């Protein structure tokens, strides 16, 4: 059988189709407890992630938005699947995508004297398979005649960029130290706000879920400190359980691998 020579235009379309079918790989999604089909990362996407590191310094964009855009572009499942992916799924997907570049990851545990170790990303992905994604939880609190119920859930990836925007937006024109303080304060409020799914007051739905981010923050600022502490406690437990999947240890030094643009720099 003689070879069929393909021209430039056809070559592009054939390879596009292959990336949707033959090159798709299965990625484990903790919230769904099953795998989804996802296309491999392209070189262009890798460079966008790395460029994002420099954007981050300028507070223009964030890593979470870039990663969500890439996952949305590469995911071969229905849009409903993409919309329901959580930020904890993102942690698993980030390592899954990073593995496509290389299964090896060099971790620096200590700067002086230098302690480094090369780990295999496969081991992290394996841990994620036995990890249980948090289920929604409700916190109840009574204050005089007012009964407040707060439903907590892990936020969706698609919502996260709006909260990031809130965190960095107000700091853009500030001086360095002031910028640092603003970002820190905003980050705390945004973190609480995004994990709250709904609020009920005296049994009535508040409609929190439909509010804009700025309005959600205004609501959070009005909640009693004791309630915020409870919310924060649960978020901390959830996060700590998640981070166990990518916490590594060397010579009694534990390190939680940071999921940011640096993770995608291959050395």
């Amino acid at each position, binding site marked *: *059988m*003689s*070879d*069929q*020579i*393909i021209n*430039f235009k056809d*070559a*592009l379309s*054939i*390879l*596009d189709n*292959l*990336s949707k079918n*033959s*090159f798709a790989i299965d990625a484990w999604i903790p919230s769904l407890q099953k795998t989804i089909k996802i*296309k*491999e*990362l*392209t*070189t*262009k996407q*890798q460079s966008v992630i790395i460029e994002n590191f420099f954007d981050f310094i300028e507070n223009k964009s964030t890593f979470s938005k870039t990663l969500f855009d890439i996952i949305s572009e590469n995911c071969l499942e229905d849009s409903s699947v993409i919309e329901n992916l959580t930020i904890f799924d993102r942690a698993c997907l980030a390592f899954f995508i990073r593995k*496509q*570049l*290389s299964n090896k990851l060099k971790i620096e545990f200590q700067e002086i004297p230098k302690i480094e170790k090369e780990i295999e990303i496969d081991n992290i992905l394996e841990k994620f398979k036995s990890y249980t994604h948090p289920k929604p939880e409700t916190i109840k609190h009574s204050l005089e005649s007012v009964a407040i119920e707060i439903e907590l859930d892990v936020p969706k990836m698609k919502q996260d960029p709006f909260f990031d925007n809130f965190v960095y937006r107000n700091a853009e024109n500030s001086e360095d130290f002031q910028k640092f303080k603003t970002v820190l304060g905003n980050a705390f409020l945004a973190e609480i706000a995004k994990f709250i799914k709904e609020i009920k007051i005296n049994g009535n739905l508040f409609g929190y879920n439909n509010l804009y981010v700025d309005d959600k923050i205004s609501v959070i600022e009005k909640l009693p400190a004791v309630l915020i502490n409870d919310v924060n406690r649960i978020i901390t437990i959830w996060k700590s359980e998640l981070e166990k999947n990518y916490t590594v240890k060397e010579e009694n030094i534990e390190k939680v691998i940071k999921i940011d643009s640096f993770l995608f720099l291959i050395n």
Partner: protein
Amino acid sequence: MEYFLHSADLPFSGIRLFYREINVKEQILLGKIAILYPFGEENNNDYITAFEKILINCVENKDDFYKINILDYILFLTKLRILSIDNNLELEFQDNDEKNLKPKFTIDLANFMKNLYQVAIDTKLSEEIEYKSLKVKLNWPSIKSKIVLLENKKNIIPTIPEFIEKITIDKDQVISFENFESYQKEEVYSKLPISFKNKIENKIFKSIEELVNKNLFDIKGMDWFKFNLYDSSYFHFFRLMFSCNLKQIYQEYYLLASKNISLSYVDNMSIPDKKVYCSMVEEEFNLKSKRNQPIGNPSDGSMSLSDLIKEFEG
């Protein structure tokens, strides 16, 4: 009527070139462009353009010449040099400090060709790499890619598609990169899965490293000379291979013209032919000089070429 009596089967391109030796006029032109465009980054492109304009005349199947890859290009030009001039390349390094010795080297060009061929084979660059339904065949970049390589010496990633010869899909669909422009190669390459690209890049990096680290001359004093496709090192080597003593060639023209040999005829002579003619004239003069020598003179009467020129001028 030109005769291209020699042929060279180029191992990495699978192309046979028919060619002839360079002639005296081309030797002079090569000597002139080396003076006109001296060593230096700013002169590289001009030198390369002029160099190829001269040497392409020695090839019969010119279209095929532009299809060969860089390693075959180096092998072919070395073979052309051996056939046209000599197998040995004499080099003398000058030192700014006059007291220091000037090291001399003789490079055996046939041995250099053998080493270059062997290191290229040892890299196994052309072995196919497979990924699911895809197979990629790599090869050394075509000579059309050499400017792309020189322009990207600080970041070689954009040059990776230049190393791809073809991609085969499902065993019978072939994307041949041979006739693609660089931007088309890049676009097709960008569609490949990143883990596959990592494999391809690793193989190319390893091959380039092996080529750069090999001392191709088998001379310890020449281990500083790195054969790097991303700089102009191989053009420096061509300059050395085809350098000539222009003054001596003009003297030879003068000598042959004195024997009523037309200058245009000398232009088209091969370099070994010119040597034969010059040696015949020398012999003739030496014989005459011996006859005119008074009896009892211990000198054998032989004269060097420059002595002969003086004789004419006198």
